[in-house]
């Protein structure tokens, strides 16, 4: 039999796509998906599944695709993953499931992520789920009578990012009455405010959140827990357990002179303006964003790549990624680094900033940098960048985005007395159950691990849901 090659994903041409915010990757056709699915050899002991934090039956859904049973494939996928269209787009499959696929030993692994995306998209287009009516979204489970509802245990979820959404959906599937409290005006967490439209269209996030609502989950927006309500008050209101999924919030800054000059943004501010507040449609939308002609982005993770690519789409002429280590250490997903390069983002590697210089109006105009070389590995296992003496040079810029990471937002943890907190402000949890040191309070996602990935946050939400179920039952 002739060997089928790994199917390429059709994408928008780079020259075109830097002018718009539409999806970069366009998704497999049916034919391509079936061809790709046929590459899977249906291992008896599928190693790919071990790489998936939410334990999707990967060969199972791929087999159904190969047999053109898309509905069945979707069912298997959603059995474990409540946000498949999101994961199919943003998970780092190359370092999780695909790296563990047996085919990768001899050739290319099965494109598990692209198949996941294909099925989620197919389902969205072809078998629209029955959504609850708009005004019942805030409220009731479609098929349960209120008397029954009263008998069910209530669980509160704080934060509606991937961790909170997953925990909520799994608990709802187990029959709990679940309420999510979200501080922003829109649920979704980083999926809504951080990851740009061209990588993760917002109507897809809305659609998957609507699915979760259809399971009976209530979502209360504009509720900053810790201020409007304390955790203690939630327990007093009858919530039997609480899951904290409030994410990584506080942006980190470089701590160098000139950092508060105008047009120096944290990535969070920059991306929130553009994604959540739709500043790319200003002035039709009210929130502005300033973008100049020459933009420097500090950092090299997904957040930095997103900021750089957003800058190009807002009309910047030259965009630089400035990173103090080498390409090998860049934490961003491979696909996103490649996309950024194709779109014309330039890379200043082994370069660290030492100060920002402004003009008479306090707008940033230059950044002074030092060249670095790699020394011995540090605690993170990566080789430590060491400054090269006398290598100072400046880059002319008129906009700067700082994307060097976030630390967990301390606002809520600070309001829970006796809650165990780590050195970096993260909530300390049991890795298996997500339990904190306080009975009935669980946590997971970026607030526990520090900035990580969507799928890790979902995995944590899933494990916590299981643990919460056991905890609540043990109390009855």
């Amino acid at each position: 039999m002739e060997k089928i090659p790994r199917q390429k994903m059709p994408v928008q041409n780079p020259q075109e796509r830097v002018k718009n915010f539409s999806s970069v990757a366009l998704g497999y056709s049916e034919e391509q998906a079936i061809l790709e699915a046929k590459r899977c050899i249906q291992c008896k002991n599928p190693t790919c599944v071990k790489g998936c934090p939410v334990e999707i039956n990967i060969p199972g859904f791929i087999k159904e695709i190969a047999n053109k049973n898309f509905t069945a494939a979707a069912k298997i996928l959603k059995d474990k993953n409540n946000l498949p269209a999101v994961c199919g787009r943003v998970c780092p499959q190359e370092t999780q499931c695909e790296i563990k696929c047996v085919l990768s030993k001899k050739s290319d692994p099965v494109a598990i992520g692209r198949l996941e995306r294909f099925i989620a998209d197919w389902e969205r287009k072809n078998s629209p789920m029955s959504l609850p009516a708009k005004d019942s979204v805030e409220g009731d489970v479609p098929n349960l009578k209120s008397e029954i509802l009263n008998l069910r245990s209530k669980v509160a979820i704080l934060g509606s990012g991937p961790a909170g959404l997953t925990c909520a959906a799994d608990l709802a599937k187990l029959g709990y009455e679940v309420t999510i409290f979200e501080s922003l005006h829109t649920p979704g967490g980083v999926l809504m405010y951080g990851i740009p439209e061209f990588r993760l269209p917002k109507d897809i996030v809305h659609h998957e959140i609507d699915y979760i609502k259809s399971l009976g989950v209530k979502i209360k927006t504009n509720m900053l827990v810790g201020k409007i309500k304390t955790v203690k008050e939630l327990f007093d209101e009858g919530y039997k357990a609480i899951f904290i999924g409030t994410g990584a919030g506080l942006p980190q800054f470089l701590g160098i002179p000139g950092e508060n000059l105008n047009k120096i943004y944290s990535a969070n501010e920059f991306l929130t303006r553009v994604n959540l507040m739709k500043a790319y449609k200003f002035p039709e939308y009210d929130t502005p964003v300033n973008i100049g002609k020459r933009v420097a982005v500090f950092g090299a993770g997904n957040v930095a790549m997103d900021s750089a690519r957003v800058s190009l789409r807002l009309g910047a002429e030259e965009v630089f990624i400035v990173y103090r280590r080498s390409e090998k250490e860049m934490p961003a997903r491979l696909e996103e680094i490649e996309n950024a390069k194709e779109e014309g983002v330039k890379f200043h590697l082994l370069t660290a900033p030492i100060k920002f210089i402004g003009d008479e109006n306090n707008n940033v105009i230059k950044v002074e940098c030092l060249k670095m070389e790699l020394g011995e590995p540090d605690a993170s296992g990566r080789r430590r960048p060491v400054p090269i003496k006398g290598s100072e040079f400046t880059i002319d810029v008129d906009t700067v985005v700082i994307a060097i990471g976030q630390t967990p937002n301390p606002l809520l943890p600070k309001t829970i007395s006796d809650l165990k907190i780590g050195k970096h402000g993260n909530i300390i949890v049991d890795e298996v159950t997500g339990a904190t040191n306080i009975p009935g309070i669980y946590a997971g996602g970026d607030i526990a691990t520090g900035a990580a990935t969507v799928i890790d946050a979902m995995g944590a939400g899933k494990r916590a849901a299981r643990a919460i179920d056991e905890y609540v039952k043990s109390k009855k």
Partner: protein
Amino acid sequence: MFKIIEKSTPSIKVNKFVIEAPEIAKKVLPGQFVILRLDEKGERIPITVADKDIEKGTITLFIQEVGKTTTKMGTLKNGDSILDIVGPLGVPSHIENFGTVLCIAGGVGVAVIYPIAKALKEKGNKIISILGARSKDFMILENEIKKISDEFYITTDDGSYVQKGFVSDVLKKLIAQSPGKPVADIVYAIGPVPMMRVISDITKQHNLKTIVSLNPIMVDGTGMCGACRVSVGGVTKFACVEGPDFDGHLVNWAELVNRLCVFKTKEKESLDHHCKLDK
């Protein structure tokens, strides 16, 4: 949706809104603010809660028309609704019995200082108030503040009401009248940035501890975006979660002024766009 129960226009360009928001009313304390978004395409704007009525479940906001959102709000009527309001946000003002408190406020800052002054009065402080406005027609909450003040002064820039001059003139006079003895144990100064800056400069010379309420540009208001960062005592602080109250003697005022101007041209574009739409 948050319903407007009562709207009025107590002064030129300042509108008063009483809004149904029972949960916020229950929780909000003096010095705290909310962030509201008018409609689907709206910006998130921070506004201090000037008053509350827990029984009626309402909060009161005084909003000065300066740009697109605040101007658009001026067109709202009783019964209209605001899409989103989140709060209370920020650290409540520190209220204790200091002895004598000097409350200095200008413009819409009067609405911000009102709940603080009221709480300070309830704690047993002697309240000396100095209110300032551009002219008589710009004065708000005069009677309410007068009622809780032991000493009360008003200035108007153009002399159209009571006394011509600035709040800083009254402050200087009070200091001069009380040689060798501090005029107050603590000063609260809230209003336009230039006013807070001038007051802080004066009180610094006389070693009078001064609290100001900063109004940097904000987006989320929960410590996530870093837009509201201000330098206080050489350290970067997030005004939305560590403020808005800070020690006026430690604030880097020049930086705050610059950062408030960062969207000037864009804001004008937005207002023009809005005006065209209305035509």
